[in-house]
């Protein structure tokens, strides 16, 4: 009951602010609505018993990525972007793509509808909720998924180097 209510609230917030993200004229307003979406998604994670991920979502997305976004927007404070034409002429393409996507999703969900009813007694003992999911995530991250984990860390390193190189000032030597 509570969970369902929370789910509806969070999804409503998430979808409405997501729409606002892509329709706002002012980039900073978009960023604020993105923050709302991200927080709502963190809430959704909580209803799915993924506290650890919810925490990570807030720390990384809201505290990190979003702050970075706003930071860059402020750094290159441009007022004229607001007056410019905001949208592409690719509305048709977008509409078609969106329609195709919706159709696909509908089809897949329709196909899988017999799996929807929740398994009754078998999954009644949720292992994750009991042992505390941060520990479980940690353990499987460092055992089964060690290689992807390392690859991810290399990816991050590359991204750091890339970002530094990209935003480096041109000095006299260059």
């Amino acid at each position, binding site marked *: 009951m509570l969970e369902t209510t929370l789910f509806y609230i969070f999804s409503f917030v998430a979808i409405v602010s997501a729409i606002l993200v892509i329709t706002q004229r002012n*980039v900073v307003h978009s960023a604020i609505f993105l923050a709302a979406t991200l927080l709502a998604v963190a809430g959704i994670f909580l209803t799915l018993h993924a506290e650890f991920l919810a925490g990570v979502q807030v720390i990384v997305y809201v505290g990190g990525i979003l702050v970075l976004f706003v930071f860059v927007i402020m750094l290159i404070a441009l007022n004229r972007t607001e007056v410019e034409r905001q949208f592409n002429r690719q*509305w048709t393409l977008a509409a078609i793509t969106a329609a195709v996507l919706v159709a696909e999703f509908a089809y897949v969900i329709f196909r899988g509808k017999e799996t929807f009813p929740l398994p009754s007694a078998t999954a009644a003992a949720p292992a994750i909720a009991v042992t505390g999911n941060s520990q479980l995530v940690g353990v499987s991250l460092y055992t089964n998924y060690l290689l992807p984990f390392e690859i991810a860390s290399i990816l991050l390193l590359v991204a750091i180097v890339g970002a530094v190189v990209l935003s480096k000032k041109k000095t006299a030597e260059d």
Partner: protein
Amino acid sequence: MVPTHYYLILGAALFTIGVIGVLTRRNIMIILMSIELMMNAVNINLMAFSDRLQQVTGQVFAIFVITVAAAEAAVGLGIVIAMFKNKETMNINEIDLMKW
């Protein structure tokens, strides 16, 4: 208990919104934000299945997705800054130097 397909529908909706954002907006910052939206949609799906199957794998993959999102933001914003320094614009249509 919320049925899993509710989450899937939510994820699909967010993903579609993200796609529309990417395709229609001209402001590169908003395009990047839309990409973040899409990543979040993916994460919701992963999380929903993880909860449904009582397996932690989904959450681990969500962590990887967040990592990729962070990397993407760093590089993307680096590109934005570099681009802004040269062209003083955030409009993606004006960045066509690599166009053949």
